[in-house]
């Protein structure tokens, strides 16, 4: 009869740490990309602001991005790190492309007989922001290739106790 091989203490600590970091990041990103847009849906109309996209759509994409960012952190000590990073970057690319195609903000100010309506097309800015997740995609692909061709090498460097 042999006793079950104990999980090395360091591995458990690393997983717990990654999980904690992932959850913290999920909460932080959710605050900015989910809570603020939802709050915005209540305040924007009274401030004369109207968006070409629904703020609930922004919150949905925000939740998706927060989820994938958390998954990337949680998956860091595993071989799923590269694919998770690719998925997270793809989620950002899709979110920016969809929101960019609808990114018209209309702002109306009424002051006595004066009515000013400003319509701002932010599509180009969303396309500009795409640069970051596209580079992130490359990074994820490199990490995936690293883990595929040299299994365990990355983990040995990032988590020396493993």
């Amino acid at each position, binding site marked *: 009869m042999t006793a079950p091989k104990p999980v090395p203490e360091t591995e458990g600590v690393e997983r717990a740490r990654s999980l904690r970091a992932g959850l913290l990041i999920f909460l932080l990103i959710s605050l900015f990309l989910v809570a603020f847009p939802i709050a915005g849906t209540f305040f924007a109309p009274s401030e004369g602001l109207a968006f070409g996209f629904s703020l609930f759509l922004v919150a949905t994409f925000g939740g998706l991005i927060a989820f994938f960012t958390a998954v990337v952190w949680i998956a860091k000590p595993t071989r799923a790190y*590269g694919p998770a*990073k690719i998925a997270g*970057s793809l989620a950002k690319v899709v979110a920016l492309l969809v929101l960019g195609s609808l990114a018209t903000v209309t702002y109306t100010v009424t002051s*006595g*007989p*004066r*009515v*000013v*309506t*400003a*319509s*701002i*097309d*932010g599509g*180009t*800015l969303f396309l*500009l*922001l795409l*640069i*970051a*997740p596209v*580079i*992130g995609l*490359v*990074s*994820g*692909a*490199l*990490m995936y*290739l*690293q883990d595929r*061709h*040299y299994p365990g*090498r*990355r983990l040995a*460097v990032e988590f020396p106790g493993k």
Partner: protein
Amino acid sequence: MNHLTLYRAGRVTGWISILTGLALVGFVLSIAVSASYIQYEGTMPISARSLGSSNLVISAEVGLSNQGVYSLEGFHMSLHLLNPQGELVATGSTATSSLPARSTVEIPLSIHTDLSSPIVSLLVTHNSTLKAHAWINATYATLVPVHLTLTEDYPWGAPFYGFSTSWGTPSNLSNGTVSLPIHVSFANYFPIPDYGTLGMSVFSTNGTRCGGGSLSLPVIATGSSFSGGTHLHLAQGCDYAGGTLTLLYTDPLVTLEIPPQVIP
């Protein structure tokens, strides 16, 4: 290839992605903050001139201040002025202009109006509140197209507000003509001074021109009133009672018909 080359490249590109993302978000926020430093400083008419027999062009300047860090390019404004009944009175537009960062510019605006139209000629002697509809297109920080529509009440000040005439007793002159004293009064509420000549012609009821005269106006500043008279020289025997007095204001730039007056 070293067994950690891909890992290192992946780490470096990962950091580049994060830093690029932060820089781009910072750039977008800086555009939003910088744009809040653009201010409209009002539209000021500076001159008026006639174009052809019935068109009047009012030149104005649209004052814009951009104290932000990015420039506003391709600024173009189109304007419609409507009377209280919603009828088109004048149209205007600016040339396409740029507003560099940390600058204040006056962009020339030309407003065209057709004085032969009865709804426009009424504005020569009547103040009104016109409705201004403006459409503005521009691009901010090279990347952000902006479209503005503006609806605003525009107080119109007539250049010959409350124009009225009073007549004296005619007298026969030795040269065989009749001298008819006339007194005119009005106020100038247009933002540009009146300083020309009033040409007057008297027509009988059957349309025959009886004669006329002119009155040189001093500089009548905006908000000032004028009251003055002259003598019209008419052909003897011409029946001007119940006829019409036509008035033409001319200065070096403008020729303007004042609505005709009925002679009592």
